[in-house]
């Protein structure tokens, strides 16, 4: 049938499917009791600080409804910040303020909102509107990341982030997510962001997709995407790999941002990373995952793991 691929050729390409991911990787390698660590961004942040892993700076936490009225006072001296629900998923409920305009705030998109809009947003977060379970939540306010100038030409508004799948501590696949006009500054692929597959060995761009279609240039900035090379790639790999020891999750998605001043920082961890990274890389995850399963019995530290990936032929683009 046109527009479809046979299961056999999909298998041959080594594509990991949703069911297989859920049963054979997530439920097998991710202990359920560890989920709160990654599902709650506040806990992740505190844990990362404990392990000396670089994360965006936490400004303050709004835990109770009566704290909402202190927002004005607390935000007085901060011009750019991001408000997130601690238990949000898929980038839901994240409000990014990049500047102040008198008493008003400027969103990443350029829209101007009032303090009341921010307090309403925080109130919604506290009531659990964006949380996975619908339970009460807390809002965390952190410093805004200033995107590395490397990405100036490749991003529309939002800050690009790099998703690295870490399997049993081995970084297996990476992609760069660039926000677009269509994605409203958000970096989620299904919302219209660009996914750029990154060679796990070198940090060079391999392939790029948007809305499931292959593209060569960024739709808004028109810059060719295959010219992207991420500097200090090894540093990113080591950072991602060390998140395994921190979280103990066997199948993990690590979201890393590159800050102009502070370098690579872990933005958040994901215990159920999506499958579209395979489309961005034009490569299936399964052969790599199976290879790691074969050798993972031997305990290695994160440096050895990164070295293994960088020298193993299977991980070539």
């Amino acid at each position, binding site marked *: 049938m046109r*527009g479809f*691929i046979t*299961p056999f*050729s999909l298998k041959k390409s080594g594509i990991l499917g949703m069911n*297989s991911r859920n049963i054979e990787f997530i439920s097998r390698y991710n202990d359920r009791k560890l989920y709160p660590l990654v599902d709650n961004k506040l806990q992740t942040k505190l844990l990362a600080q404990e392990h000396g892993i670089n994360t965006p700076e936490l400004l303050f936490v709004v835990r109770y409804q009566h704290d909402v009225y202190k927002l004005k006072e607390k935000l007085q001296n901060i011009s750019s910040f991001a408000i997130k629900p601690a238990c949000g998923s898929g980038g839901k409920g994240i409000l990014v303020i990049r500047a102040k305009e008198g008493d008003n705030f400027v969103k990443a998109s350029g829209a101007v909102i009032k303090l009341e809009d921010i307090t309403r947003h925080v109130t919604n977060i506290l009531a659990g*509107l964006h949380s996975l379970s619908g339970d009460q939540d807390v809002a965390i306010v952190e410093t805004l990341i200033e995107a590395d100038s490397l990405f100036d030409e490749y991003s529309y508004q939002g800050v690009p982030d790099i998703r690295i799948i870490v399997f049993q501590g081995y970084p297996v696949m990476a992609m760069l997510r660039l926000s677009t006009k269509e994605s409203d500054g958000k970096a989620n692929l299904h919302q219209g962001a660009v996914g750029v597959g990154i060679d796990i060995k070198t940090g060079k761009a391999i392939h790029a997709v948007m809305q*499931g279609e292959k593209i060569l240039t960024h739709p808004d900035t028109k810059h060719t995407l295959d010219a992207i090379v991420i500097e200090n790639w090894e540093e990113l790999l080591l950072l991602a790999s060390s998140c395994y020891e921190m979280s103990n999750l066997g199948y993990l998605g690590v979201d890393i941002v590159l800050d102009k001043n502070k370098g690579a920082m872990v933005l958040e961890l994901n215990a159920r990373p999506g499958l579209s990274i*395979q489309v961005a890389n*034009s490569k299936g995850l399964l052969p790599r995952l199976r290879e790691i399963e074969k050798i993972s019995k031997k305990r290695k530290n994160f440096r050895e793991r990164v070295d293994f990936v960088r020298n193993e032929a299977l991980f070539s683009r």
Partner: protein
Amino acid sequence: MISNKSLYILTFSMMILGIFIAFMRYEQTHIPFLASEKKDVWMLEARVDFQAQENTPVNVSLSLPSDTVDYKLYFEQSVSAGYGFSMMQKDGLKRGEWSVRQAKGKQTLYYKAQIVQDFSDQASLEEAKPHLEVKDDILWNEAESIAAKEILALAYAKSSDDISFTRELIKILSAKHTSKEGSILLAKRNYIDVLNKLLDDSGIVHKVSLALELEDGRRKQSLTPVIEVLSKNEWILFDPNNRLQEENKNFFLWTRGGKSLIEITGGTNATVHFSMIKQNMPALELAKTHVDDSGFSLFSVHRLPIEEQSLFKLLLLLPIGALITVFMRLIIGVKTSGTFMPVLIAMAFLQTSLFLGMLNFVVLVGIGLILRSYLSSLNLLLVARIATIIVIVIFMVAFMTLIGYELGFNTGMSVAFFPIIILAWTIERMSILWEEEGPQEVLIQGSGSLFVAALAYLAMVNGYVAHLFFNFPELHLIVIALMILMGRYTGYRLLELRRFREFKSI
């Protein structure tokens, strides 16, 4: 994690167990597997009228039917105010006895029975007693005796066995221009008595029974005497008024062996009338009333009152909807909003009908989304906002009901069956989805939910499915087994074959 092998063994044995129990239940209760099997059911009513004598205890004894070769008695009941009623066996015959200490004036007693044509079962033929009880209530005089002998000789000559002999005898006696011998015998006597006496004389094992001729919608009928002749361990029925013995009349034997139909003390002028209706009920309805003592009927839903049963009918359908949802999500990969919302929508469709249900759903959610967008500017806490949406949804339902009523449709009424809380949450979730992911995602998830709900509805509304899972609840073991198997399916989803179509080139 349990290994695949033991998982397969577990699910396989669950399926086998389910099928086995269902089959055992079928063997025991004869509930058919397919709902469409229908059988003829006769509702019979015997009405006894009499004049009670004052200041005397009344006792009425009516001969009652039992299972016969062709018909099974499924249900019987007596309706008679103030009377004590009991059924008993007397000389191998069933009788119902009504009794009351005092009664005045005209009395009416009812006995109702439901009988079903049943050829499948080998009749519980009561041990045929191959002996003849000769009653000597008729004594031939000289002339009659000679005539009887002549007739018997004639019939004997023309026949080969008891059956054909009886047939010949009836032919001779009931002929319009009967023979000289026949008219001698019938001159002073009753036709049946004569026939009976002649069969006595010839030594044929037979009995005179009273039968009800079954004809749909007849009222004020009385019983017809018939002759039963024993042949090869089987009682053959003869209608003495049917010369040629064409097999066209439908007789139900009411009282067998010449016992009296009614005996009464303390009353006079007793009459018995019969009325009947034929119904074409699904065989299931019959099995329902046929409560036996086997373990299966003890654990059957049919033991519950009718009201509870209808609730269970709906509950036992839910797993089918859930199964379809599991299939559509795990194997096909359809996105739905809320894991099991489609099942709940489908349950609502069951009350409304598919098209109207969908229309109502889309309109309700659509209007809800518009109103919700206004609510978001009111800066409400989540709980209060959901509560507000609930009230709005109720108002919309009421409004649609009114419009439907004014326009002369029933459509609005059916909206009330939608789970209102679920609708409110759907509106809230969709509205958030709209704000964060855009209208496209709302459309995808909304239509996905509706699609799965429609499929679940079509499965649940199917008569066969409803019949099977209601009457054979053990089949849910198979449903669970299938769900477990799908829960361990690690292959690709159908829609992933599209999502990853770009890999074709590699």
